[in-house]
Structures are given as C-alpha cells and as structure tokens.
C-alpha cells in the first residue's frame, strides 16, 4: 500500500466496503479525485434530478390526459424521395451525438498522453458535432412550429400537453448542448495554447464528463419521448 505524499490514501485500500467506509470516515477528503472532477460529478447529479423531474412531469401529463397522445413516430417522420421514414431526423441526431461522445472519449485519452494538439483537435470536432446537433434541432423545431402548428398550449394532432412537454424537454437539452459547444471550444483553445502543461490535463476529462452527460440525457429522451 503506497501512500502518496500529496493525496493521503484515506482508510483502507482493500476493495469493497472497507474502502467505501474508509474514504467516508477518514476525516480527510472523501473523493480522491481532483476537486474539479468531484464538483463536475456533483453538478451532473443535480442536473440528473432536473431532467428526471422534466421526464417524470411528462410521464404524468401523458398518463393523465384522456385525449390520444400524438404518435411521435409520425410527427417526427420525414418524407425522403416520396417515402415516409419515421423518426429519421431524430435517428440521425442520435448518431451525431454518439459520434461526438466517441471523439470526446478519444480527446480525454490524448489529453492524458499530453498530446495536446490531438486532444484539442478532437475537442473541436466534438464541438462541431454538437453544433450540427443543435442546427438539426433548430430545423426540427421550425418544422414543428411552422408546418405542423404545434404550440406549447395545443396542437392539431392530439393531447395539448404534447407541445409543452416537447419544447420543455428538448429545449432544455438543446440549451445544454449549446452550452457544451461553448465550453468545449473555450477549453480546447486553452489546451491548444498550452495553458494546462503544468497543471495537467484533468480539465479535458472534466469537460468530457459534461459532454457525455449531455449524450446520456439524450439516450433517455430518445427512449421515453420519441420511441415510447
């Protein structure tokens, strides 16, 4: 058991419950990770509760309405060469976000290898995919508002709670993606400039945690709002 000078290993390093109890009862720092990472995790935990409340609210209004819920498969379908493909745009958006999560994971890896050129490049690519996602969402919103006449207080297809749930949930998620694009771009520029050569590249992983979380939320929105 090697105890490092800077971060004393709290309690036991035995895997299992002893490690957990040791970390929490050692009268020292509980989380043996850089403070920024612990704080990002706690922020993401609070964000989990926000999105869960939105999704639970959506579940509640969808259960409670006696009016037929509009079929997302049809509402979000696109006509391509005369064929009606269900959920086409949403499917593409899902793949765009998954791709961006992959490039982000690689960026974290190259960051820890101190290959700051590649780390920054991959972060810029991730941000670009995020921007594409937001662009597609803007297209989807305009189509729904202008062509389909969906409003937060009603729509021609069915239950009037559809619009409110949709704009609220996807709007808040889109806001997270937009903020993530800005966050990624700023950190990537600082990485490229060499600002973290002394401090180390945990910041890339912390930024990555936020980005993966945005992807994670989309997994739940896709399942519960678009597929259900």
């Amino acid at each position, binding site marked *: 058991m090697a105890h490092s000078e800077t971060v004393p290993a709290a309690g036991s390093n035995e895997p299992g419950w002893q490690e957990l109890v040791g970390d929490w009862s050692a009268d020292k720092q509980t989380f043996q990770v850089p403070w920024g990472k612990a704080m990002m995790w706690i922020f993401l935990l609070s964000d989990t509760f926000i999105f*869960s409340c939105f999704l639970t609210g959506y579940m509640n209004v969808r259960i409670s309405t006696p009016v037929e819920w509009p079929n997302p498969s049809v509402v979000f379908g696109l006509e391509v060469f005369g064929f009606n493909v269900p959920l086409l745009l949403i499917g593409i958006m899902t*793949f765009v976000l998954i791709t961006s999560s*992959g490039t982000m994971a690689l960026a974290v890896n190259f960051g820890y290898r101190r290959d700051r050129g590649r780390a920054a490049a991959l972060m810029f690519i991730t941000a670009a995919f995020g921007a594409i996602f937001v662009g597609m969402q803007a297209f989807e919103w305009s189509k729904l508002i202008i062509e389909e006449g969906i409003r937060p207080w009603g729509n021609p297809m069915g239950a009037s709670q559809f619009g409110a749930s949709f704009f609220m949930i996807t709007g808040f998620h889109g806001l997270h993606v937009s903020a993530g694009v800005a966050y990624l771009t700023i950190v990537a520029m600082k990485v490229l400039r060499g600002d973290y050569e002394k*401090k180390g590249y945990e910041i890339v992983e912390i930024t990555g945690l936020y980005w*993966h979380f945005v992807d994670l939320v989309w997994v739940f929105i896709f399942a519960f709002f678009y597929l259900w």
Partner: protein
Amino acid sequence: MSEATGQQHPLKLYFVIWGLLFALSTASYATDFLEHGYFRWFLILTFMFLKAGFIIAIFMHMKWERLALIWAILGPPAVLLVLIGLMAVEGDYTELTRRDFFSAPLAPTGHAEAH
C-alpha cells in the same frame, strides 16, 4: 501527480464501446417499427439501460472510480423511483377524474334539475 490520477486506458476499448453504442442505437431505432406493447417497451428500456451503462461506466470512467464516488453519484438518483411511482399513481387518478367529469355525457342529476 497528474499521471498518477489520470484515467489511462487503451484506445481499443473506446473504439469497441463506440461501436457497441452505434449498434445499440440502431437497435433502439429499429424498435420504432414494432407494434406498441410490452415487447417493444421491454426492448426500448433494455437498449436504453445498456447504452446509459456503457456511457457511464466506460466513457465517463465510472468503472475505475473508487466506491466512495460511485455511491455518492449513483445512489441518490434511486430516490427518483419514489417520485416516478407517485406521479404514475397521481396521473392515473387525474385521468380517471377527467374521464368522470369532462368526457362522459353527464347523466341528469339533482344539480341539473335545480336550473
């Protein structure tokens, strides 16, 4: 110090998970062509939890964190199950009352005669 705490894993792992996420996304998209029902809902939830699990465990490196952090982050969301359960019951109740008062043609009652 940063080298000691940093998460360093072979690139191959990320590519494998990336591919898996793509496959799972395709599979969950494909559920949209199934009929609505328990089988479809089961598949939607299965693919959703698998995707979420891979993202959290591998991409967010939760698998390699100490238990103190894992429990602090993954434990609290469990209470959300209570909220979901309560809101599902509440939703059913609201629907019943709405059907009772809004949609069914009102049978003549003592109140109606008062007019």
